């Protein structure tokens, strides 16, 4: 891969990869690092891709896997829940934003919702990215929606 192609792909997918990483980690700095790691892996990979959708899925998979490793690390297991509470975006000026509530869900639910609703990825593709069975993804999405609904009601969001 040459620099021109890297530039094109960063411009096209940096937001996608960063959002996936942020949904996992809820930490801007770590999500930023993971994004660069994913593009470095892409740039140095000799994988033959069949198209941009293939590259996008590959990047998300790399990012999510690295996030999983980070979440398993001692630092995240012992410090993340409280330390990062302040990092949940307040979304000033966007009264309809439910991002702070989404970010209270478990990482696996946040990522599934992100890929399904924002990236419009089919369940089969999400299952391949996450290395899960499609039925597991479907269940996860259902539980994510259910918990999101409960949280929205609890926190007084209208018109759910």
């Amino acid at each position: 891969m040459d620099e021109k192609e890297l530039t094109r792909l960063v411009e096209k997918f940096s937001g996608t990869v960063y959002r996936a990483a942020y949904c996992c980690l809820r930490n801007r700095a770590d999500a930023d690092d993971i994004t660069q790691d994913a593009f470095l892996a892409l740039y140095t990979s000799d994988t033959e891709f069949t198209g941009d959708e293939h590259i996008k899925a590959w990047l998300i998979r790399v990012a999510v896997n690295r996030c999983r490793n980070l979440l398993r690390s001692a630092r995240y297991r012992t410090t993340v829940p409280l330390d990062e509470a302040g990092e949940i975006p307040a979304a000033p000026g966007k009264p309809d934003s439910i991002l702070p509530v989404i970010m209270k869900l478990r990482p696996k639910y946040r990522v599934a919702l992100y890929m399904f609703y924002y990236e419009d990825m089919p369940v089969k593709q999400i299952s391949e990215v996450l290395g899960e069975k499609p039925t597991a993804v479907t269940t996860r999405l259902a539980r994510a929606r259910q918990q999101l609904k409960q949280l929205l009601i609890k926190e007084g969001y209208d018109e759910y």
Partner: protein
Amino acid sequence: MSIEKRLRESFSEITPPTDNGTIIRNVIERAENMKKNETRKPRSNRVFVTVFAAAAVLAAATVSVGAATGWNFNSAFSQVNQTVANNNGNHSVHAYSTDEVRQEAAQEPVRESVEAVAENQFDYLSGGKELDLWYSFDDFKLNIKGVCADDYMAYVLFDIVFDDDFDYSAKAGWTSWEICTLAEAVDKSLDEQPELGMVSGIGEEVISQEGNVLHCSVRPHMFSEYTWAGKTLTLDFMSIRRFIPGKSEKDDVPYQDKEELLFGGDGLHVEIPIDFPIFETTTWEIDQPIDLAADEYNRLYYGEELPATVKYFSATPLSWRVYVEADTSTFVKGDAYSINVSIKSGDRTLETVSGEGSGWIDESGQGEISLFAEPVDTAEITSITVCGQTFQLK
């Protein structure tokens, strides 16, 4: 506004802090540095500063010497134990050798390191036995090396030895090898086995790869009402697989193919009698109330008050189990509460499990079984803290 639209708009608020130009520059710079490092003469060892990393180096060195002089049961299991526990994110200050011993041993030549380990190492054979069973398949051989067990967990170590003409090497973008096994416990003294089986879960890991050899372990867990003592472990080895990105796709989406090796058409069925003395369990009855909402995740997801009872804590030199029953009036079927646990010997922390991925209780009310990062002397355990509440153990 529909929830779907609100979800989409909400996710769009997440924006990268770094501009694309900076990402591109950083990636290119790091790639160039990687190339430069690859062309340099490789260094013999990295400098490890943490206690665990030093221990891992020591274990690896021990195994390599063992390979030349014969297989070493204790060293191999020590490496498995350490790797599994580290992968789980646990940490401990163990009871059988000091940090100083490990660090000193890691700095000594390999043979002295082996001797240092031998003097301080926990004896896995006191609750296990060597097996050295060999099975041949297309492209590889299976070598079941040994087993040890306590009441909760049988702990099998095996190697996959790829044939010389098989391309087992790792390549960029390829996933690591994964092992797929099934396990069950059989009580030969019974005419009928329990309807739902006795094994509650199974852990399987590829610990490391040395050339054409994958070092692997599989750890079936028992439900709390059963013990491995006197049972027969039945293992069905199904497949070894890894995923390879992007080949032979017919549409634009698929990005990984599966490379899979099979243990024969129906898998390989192996029976391992646990007919040796297993590690003993020490149990402390607690029967005290706690509030699971002291855990951040539980509070966020399930509510401000989550009454539960810590029924008992038990431990063997290899593993531990805390049994917590949640108040069924607040328990939502299908959910799983997090249990943060810290186990201490005086002021020393033997084990801490916390945050997401820690132990869980579900409908069965049973806490997850966990491995100690290194074997402990259960007589030295003095207290356990569950979701912020400490219980002294006598």
